[in-house]
C-alpha cells in the first residue's frame, strides 16, 4: 500500500493574527506545528502500513519552515517526505494549493491512498482534499471517523456529519479526509526522533512538476480574501432536491440566487 499523507503546518497558538492591510495571516515568528487533523491522518496511514505493509509518504506545500513539521511526521514513523517549496507557489488559495499537490501525487506515482485532515485549524476551509480528489479524478471520503479495508482494493468509511453518520465504500485509489474521532495519534519516540534525521525530505519546485504555470501561486488563485469574520449560525430548513441532477442543479441555483 502506497499512502501519501498531505500535511499543513499551522501556527501553534490559537491566537492567529490577521494583517489588517492584506487580510492575510501574519505567519512570522510563530512556532509551527502539524495541523492536528493531519496527525490523525498520519496515524491512520501508519496503522494501515502496520497491517498491510507499504510506504507512508508525507507531502506538504509551504516555505522552508515547514521542514520541522515534516520531520515531526517522520518521527511519528513515516518513511519519507516531500516539500513543495518555491516562491512561485506562494499566496495560493485552496485551488492553487490542491492543484500542485495533485500533480505531485501523480509524479510520486502508484499511490493507492491519499489521506488529508478534514480541515486546517488556521484557514479552516476543508477544500483542499476534495480539490485534490477532483484533480486526481478518484473517489473521495470526507469527514471519516472510521476506516476499514473490505479487501485489498476496497475501503469502507464511516462519515460523521452534523447530526448524522453515513457509510460509504470506495475503490482505490481514493482520497480520504479524516476527523479526530478516527484515532489517537501516537507520540514520536526517542528512537524515531533520531532516525527522522536519516530519512529523506525532498524539495520539489514548480520545475520538478508537470504544471500549468498560470494555475499556481497568488497569480494562479481565482479567489482573494476580502474580509474575515465569524458567520452567524442560523438554523435553516433542510430541503431535498430532485433526484434528476439537471433539475437539482436548477433548483439549487434558484435557491442560491434568492
Amino acid at each position, binding site marked *: 500500500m502506497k499512502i501519501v499523507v498531505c500535511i499543513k503546518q499551522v501556527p501553534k497558538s490559537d491566537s492567529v493574527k490577521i494583517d489588517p492591510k492584506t487580510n492575510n495571516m501574519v505567519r512570522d515568528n510563530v512556532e509551527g506545528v502539524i495541523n492536528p487533523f493531519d496527525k490523525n491522518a498520519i496515524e491512520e496511514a501508519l496503522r494501515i502500513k502496520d497491517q498491510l505493509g507499504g510506504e507512508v509518504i508525507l507531502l506538504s506545500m509551504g516555505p522552508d519552515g515547514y521542514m*520541522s513539521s515534516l*520531520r*515531526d511526521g517522520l*518521527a511519528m514513523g513515516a518513511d519519507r517526505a516531500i516539500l513543495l517549496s518555491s516562491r512561485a507557489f506562494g499566496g495560493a488559495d485552496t485551488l492553487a494549493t490542491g492543484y500542485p499537490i495533485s500533480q505531485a501525487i501523480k509524479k510520486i506515482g502508484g499511490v493507492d491512498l491519499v489521506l488529508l485532515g478534514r480541515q486546517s485549524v488556521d484557514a479552516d476551509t476543508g477544500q483542499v482534499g476534495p480539490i485534490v480528489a477532483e484533480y486526481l479524478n478518484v473517489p473521495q471520503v470526507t469527514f471519516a471517523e472510521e476506516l476499514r479495508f473490505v479487501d485489498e482494493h476496497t475501503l469502507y468509511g464511516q462519515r460523521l456529519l452534523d447530526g448524522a453518520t453515513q457509510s460509504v465504500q470506495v475503490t482505490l485509489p481514493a482520497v480520504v479526509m479524516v476527523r479526530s474521532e478516527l484515532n489517537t495519534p501516537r*507520540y*514520536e*519516540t*526517542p*528512537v*524515531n*526522533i*533520531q532516525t*527522522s*534525521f536519516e530519512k529523506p525530505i525532498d524539495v520539489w519546485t514548480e520545475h520538478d512538476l508537470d504544471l500549468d504555470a498560470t494555475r499556481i501561486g497568488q497569480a494562479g488563485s481565482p479567489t482573494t480574501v476580502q474580509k474575515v469574520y465569524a458567520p452567524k449560525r442560523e438554523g435553516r430548513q433542510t430541503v431535498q432536491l430532485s433526484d434528476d441532477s439537471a433539475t437539482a442543479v436548477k433548483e439549487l441555483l434558484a435557491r442560491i440566487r434568492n
Partner: protein
Amino acid sequence: MENQEKMAASMLHRMVREFTENELAPLDMEIDAQGDYPQGLFQKVIDNGLLTMTLPREYGGAGFSYDSVAKAIHLMAIGNASMAVTLEGHFKTLEQLLKYGDQRLKDEYLTSAAHRIFAFSQTESSGGSNPRGIATRAVKSGDDWIITGDKIMITNGGLAQVYCVLAKTEDDQMAVFVVDQDMPGFSFGKREDFIGLRGTPVGEIVMDHIKVPGYHLLGQIGQGLEIGNNAHDDARILMGAVLTGIMEHELQIAVDYSKQRKALDTPLYELQTIQEKISEIAIARQNTELLYQHAAQLKITGQSYAQVAAMAKSYGSRAAVRCGDMALQVLAGYGYSREYPIEHLIRDARAMEIAEGTVERMSGEIALKQVNQ
C-alpha cells in the same frame, strides 16, 4: 550536525512534555494515594521508547546525550517524580554497563534495555552509607561466580529484571556483578512502604547461590566501590533534574494560588511575605537546574563531575523540601490538605536527601574535596 543534535533534543523534550502532560500528570495524585503505578502505565512508558533515551544507537537505543536526557527527566518530574526516578535508576545503571561491561555482556544485555529495566543494588541491612559493611559474597567456581546475599532498598526492585550487585569476594575485595532475575536462586523480597515517591517500587532481592558467568563481572575485582561511586555520580545528576522538576511543580502551585486567592481585596502575590516565598522557590529551582546541567556538561565533555553532581543533589534535595514547605505556607490550610499535591511533593523530595548517598555523606565528600584541592 550540532544543529541536528539540538533539533533532536528539542523534539525529545516536547515529546516527554506531551507524554507527561497526557499520561502522567493526571495520575500524579492517584499514584501517590495507591502507592503504585496503575496497571498498564509502565508498559506505556516502555511502548513509547522512554527506556531507550540514553542507550546508544548500536544497542537499539536513541543515544541522546546525558544532558538532554537529564532535561527530559526534569520535564517528566514536573508531572510525576516517581516515574522520573524509575527512569533515573535505569539510566544510571546502564551507564555502568556501558563504562565497565565486557563487550559480550553488553551485546547480550544492552540490546534488551529498551524493554527491560536495570537496577543498581549496593545497600544491605548491614551496609548503607558504609558499603564495606555488606555481607553479600561472590565465590569463584571455575569460570563462574556463586553469589549469595540479600539486597534491600533497591530503586525499581521487583520491577527491574537485571541487577548490578555489589559483593565481596573471598579475599574481601569489592566487585560488581550483573545478575538476571531469570537465574536460578534469584527471588524478590519485600517492597518498602516508603512515605514518598510512592509510585517507584523500592524493594529487596534475595540471591541464594546464584551461578553467574565470569563475563558478568563489571570492570575488575577490587573495582566495586569505584563503580558504585560512579553510579552515584551519574544518578545524582539525574536526581538534580528530578528535584528541579519537583520545585517547578511547587512553584506552579504557589504562583497559581497566589493569583486566585485574595487577602481581602489584595491578591496574595502582592503581599511581600508571599513574594518572598515565591522568589525563594524560583531561585532554588533555577540554581538546581544550573547545577545539574553543569554537572551533565562536565560529564559529556569528559571532565570530572562528581563534585558538581553531589552539589546538585545535596543542594537540590534540601531546597526542594524547604521550597515545598514554603509553597505549603502560601496555600496555608489548603496546602496542608491532602487534596493538594504539595504535601506529597515534600515527601517525594525528602527521599533524595537519603537515596544515592545521604546529604551528610555528600557534605563530607564536598568538604574534603575543598580541603584537599
